[in-house]
């Protein structure tokens, strides 16, 4: 008897993902993406990675989705609607074919080639202190580099999105 939680969560992920791509309004698409990401966080909880699930919710849904919503609201024409793509046409059908083939190939390759035991080993939750110790010792260098890259990203993003204000002759900005 398949696990109801797994079925429900994977249903949420897939249906929201399809909705995110196919919704007419981009804002609805962003909401669909948010639901899909929350479903992925639920799957993390099912797999015993609770801290990761909270991390996913607070970073992805709490920050990235906000950014996406924000950008959608800024990228608008005066009429109020972004020019949306029309019916998929040839490119859409080709897309489905390509995507289906690749997904099938990947799934098939992993399932056949990797020796997988059907039983899940005993598992009593993520040992959080061990995770922290790992991050601080073995993963210290990537962590610091991550910090530097985040700083660079923030500075780069701000510089790119900056609006140049014209300066008046007496030096004050407009």
């Amino acid at each position: 008897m398949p696990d109801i939680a797994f079925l429900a969560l994977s249903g949420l992920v897939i249906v929201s993902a399809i909705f995110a791509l196919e919704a007419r309004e981009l804002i609805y698409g962003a909401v669909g993406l948010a639901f899909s990401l929350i479903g992925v966080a639920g799957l993390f909880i099912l797999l015993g990675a609770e801290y990761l699930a909270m991390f996913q919710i607070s970073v992805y849904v709490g920050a990235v989705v906000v950014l996406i919503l924000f950008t959608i609201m800024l990228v608008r024409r005066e009429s109020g609607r972004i020019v949306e793509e029309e019916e998929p046409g040839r490119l859409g059908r080709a897309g489905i074919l390509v995507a289906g083939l690749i997904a099938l190939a990947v799934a098939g390759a992993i399932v056949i080639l990797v020796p997988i035991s059907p039983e899940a080993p005993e598992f009593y939750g993520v040992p959080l202190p061990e995770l922290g110790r790992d991050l601080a010792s073995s993963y210290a260098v990537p962590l610091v580099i991550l910090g530097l890259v985040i700083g660079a990203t923030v500075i780069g993003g701000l510089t790119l999105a900056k609006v140049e204000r014209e300066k008046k002759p007496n030096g004050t900005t407009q």
Partner: protein
Amino acid sequence: MEPLSSYIILSAALLGIGIYGLVSKRNAIRLLFSVELIVNAANINFVAFARYSNPPMLAGWNIVFFSIAAAAMEATVGLALILVAFRLNGTIDVRKLNRLRG
């Protein structure tokens, strides 16, 4: 417990949806959605393998940790680029954004 193959199939399906979005959509923000879906598919795969290996490997979780952070940063820069592209061209239709402008 679900067998591991269920998680792999789910992750491959999500990957498929993401690739479909990348191939057939022409709104730049939808392309970003698709990229995020693909990254999440990979993350699910990592966590599933980390859980089902014997003994459970903590490396899977650490990789996903960095993956989520890196994907968030990439979304940030991508969105900033979309903003700039919109300001310069008035559109975010990627088929029209095919010229390098000064």
